């Protein structure tokens, strides 16, 4: 483990990062190594091109949305702390943490995970998933198997099931409610990041 501590020393603000995100030193080092592998030109930050260079990611139907989620507020550079903060969403939920009402939720809480997923739909950041945004995502995922009419039916049905205040859009609360039966911890966690 000697390499871990030496690499750890190279990461700026490692202690704060670990505190904020909950990653262990070993994880942080592993993510740092990965960051460096992705950053092929050794710029010190990542750009969207570095993400697209990951072949398997490029084949993902929602690849651009995932990349967009990393580069929030339209920036073109992603430094290591921001990289880690985004990935902290995917840590499994700590079940043993005592619930303190005053302290903010950890990044990997269920609600924050759902917020992250919500943001994938809500590209214009108005706090609601409009029918149009839903259609876009459905189109990306279902590609050519269905016709436009069927896509629209599915979108209609999705909104109909979730939309409680009848504004033809899904707010974050409605989104959260529609997923209450789903085990988000299982679905949105990468186990090795525990």
């Amino acid at each position, binding site marked *: 483990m000697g390499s871990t501590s030496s690499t750890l020393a190279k990461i700026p603000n490692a202690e704060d990062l670990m505190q904020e995100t909950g990653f262990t030193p070993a994880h942080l080092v*592993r993510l740092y190594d*990965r960051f460096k*592998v992705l950053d*092929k*030109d050794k710029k010190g930050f990542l750009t*969207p*091109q*570095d*993400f*697209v*260079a990951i072949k*398997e*990611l*490029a*084949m*993902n*139907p*929602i*690849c*651009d949305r*995932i*990349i967009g989620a*990393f580069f929030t507020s339209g920036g*073109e550079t992603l430094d290591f702390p921001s990289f880690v903060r985004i*990935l902290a969403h*995917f840590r499994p939920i700590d079940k043993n943490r005592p619930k303190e009402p005053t302290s903010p939720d950890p990044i990997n809480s269920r609600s924050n995970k759902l917020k992250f*997923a919500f943001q*994938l*739909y809500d590209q214009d950041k108005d706090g609601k998933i409009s029918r149009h945004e839903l259609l876009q995502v*459905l189109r*990306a*995922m*279902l*590609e*050519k*198997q*269905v*016709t*436009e*009419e*069927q896509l629209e*039916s*599915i979108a*209609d*049905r*999705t909104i*109909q*099931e*979730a939309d409680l205040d009848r504004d033809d859009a899904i707010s974050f609360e409605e*989104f959260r409610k*529609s*997923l209450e*039966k*789903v085990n*988000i911890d299982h*679905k*949105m966690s*990468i*186990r*090795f990041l525990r």
Partner: protein
Amino acid sequence: MTVTYIHLLLLLLDPSSALMSTQDPPPSLGNHSMDKNDVDEAEGHFTVPIAFRVFSVDYHHVQAPFEIVLWIMLASLAKLGFHWSGRIPAVVPESCLLIMVGLLVGGVIYGVRHTAPPVLSAEAFFLYLLPPIVLDAGYFLPGRLFFENLGTILWYAVLGTLWNVLGIGLSLYGLCQLGGWGLEEVSLLHFLLFGSLIAAVDPVAVLSVFEEIHVNEQLHILVFGESLLNDAVTVVLYKLFESFLRMPSVSGVDVLAGGCQFVVVGLGGLCVGLFFGLVAALTTRFTARAQVIAPLFVFLYSYLSYLTSEMLHFSGIMAIVTCAVTMKQYVEANVSEKSNTTIKYFLKMWSSVSETLIFIFLGVSTIQDVHMWSWPFVSSTLFLCLLWRALGVLLLTAVVNKLRRNAVTFRDQFIIAYGGLRGAICFSLVFLIEDFPKKRLFITTTIVVILFTVFVQGMTIKPLVELLDVKRKKRVLPTVSEEVHCRLLDHLLSGIEDVVGYWGQHYWKDKFEHFNTKYLKRFLIREDKQPKSSIVRLYQELERREQMGETDEGKRERSPAIEENQTHSRSLLPEEMDSIRRILSTNLRNFNNKHITAYSRHTLHQDFTVDASRKACLRRHQSLGERHSSTQTHGSQWDDAGSQGACLSRSLTVSQSPRSAHRDPHSTREGSLNGPVRVTFEGLASPSSTYLQGQDSSSARMPKKLSFAFENEKGK
């Protein structure tokens, strides 16, 4: 004098008796013109002159190959017959039908000759019939899926088989001791030996049945991979128990040595396969001048690896699978298109014939005089096989699900447990046991178990699976929102895993890719075929796939569209809900569908039926490829690997223009559940457009989706 020399010559030429049954007519002479002289000389008292034979039948001369060809012909005609009638293969799996044909033929032979028909010899099976099937399976193995699930597969193969063997052997022994069936004197080792051969799931039988039930790829690879890899365990245990039987006493050290032997056998097979795979890849590097024999090397080296590892008592199946997997990518790069096609067609053909022959012979060999029957033993064996397999699968899955993201569902577990069919490997192994008083009983039981699993389990698995699906659907009906959102999350997780380089899967894969590109490919692939630019290569690949997708689209547009009730109101009819559910469950399930080609014994991948379009698109590649390489020289803002994405989107938008006309008509394809699964590739909107400078025509346009299709299993 001359006549005696001729006699000797003729005696030498006289063919010896065939590998199967004996023949009645006396050996006739090969050289007909000698007849007259010979008869005159040998049987001098024959006064009737025999006319010069203008026409005669000399069966014995050609007997051996003639009979072999007849068997193969019978097998192929039977197969042809089944596929002619559309409905029967849907209900009865082909393996069952073939066994029935075999039974029929065996019965006929028995009736005519009143002796047992020829038995499938273990040697013929292991040396000639099994390798083509396993080679075919290995060559078309979906590599990425296999390695992603390798841990689970090994878990099931090694531990599952051990569990089954020990369970069946010990419980049979216990039952026989207690049961009073007259089997008390059979030793524990014999039962363990029996257990080891009967517990093994057979890849041939599994494959043939799974063709019909259309399971998802992950499940398919789990069962199939397990059946391939458990060969190592089976071989070791079988040989171990056999050698224990011969030893006067067994000590703990021997058991430990057996355990080590397992590792040796598995790894040894792997190494032999690797070695031959690499040598084969290297050889194909030099076949540019003699392209016609290039496919031969593939077969020769694979077969050689199998034989070598059998010679060294390693696992031949593992060797041949490893060899095929190793050499595939290099061979495909090195040899010409036609040679590639030849390799694949021949593999399919040989494995098909082999499989058919195996099943027919299973049927024929069942008709024998040597059966010894014992109701309690047979039925308890059957029951225990099922029981232990079910228990094993349940327990192992419970453990392994904690470590997997895509859990193995209950339905999958049922299929794994129920789909553990036994086949010809057990059959051959049981014949190889050294003779002991109850050997016939074991043979009979093995045959019964095989027939039971193939017939009963093979035929009922499909209805049972459908029943399970229906039941499951009735109990828990996820809302459409849940389905949609969950699939989004799956895509998201998949993407994040790729970003993070989830080290269990991608870390080693990346390392291997790095090693591969840097060293192996340089060494093993011909110079002119070295990938010059990964961008061009990727572009060509996408083009090719898109072409295939287009041809597929064109075909589908001509087929009648299935009508759907178009409703514009918000509420949906129940039929529509059902169809929506079906769409979602069929299509969204393939979220990990990165590069999956469906494995099918009977058909080749879509690739090989669209030659014309590929040629056209290859021509276009080359012209565009030249444009690529010329523009790249003054595209200083790109470097090769790093801006692959940007170049890719650039290349995508370039390709849009000639084909924008084809993009629009989308025919209804919903009803066809066996439609191709498509993966969309979306060019990046904002970042890429800034990089497109001085590019012709279509660059500034919003990048449209470029989808390419590849044929997938009929999904349900």
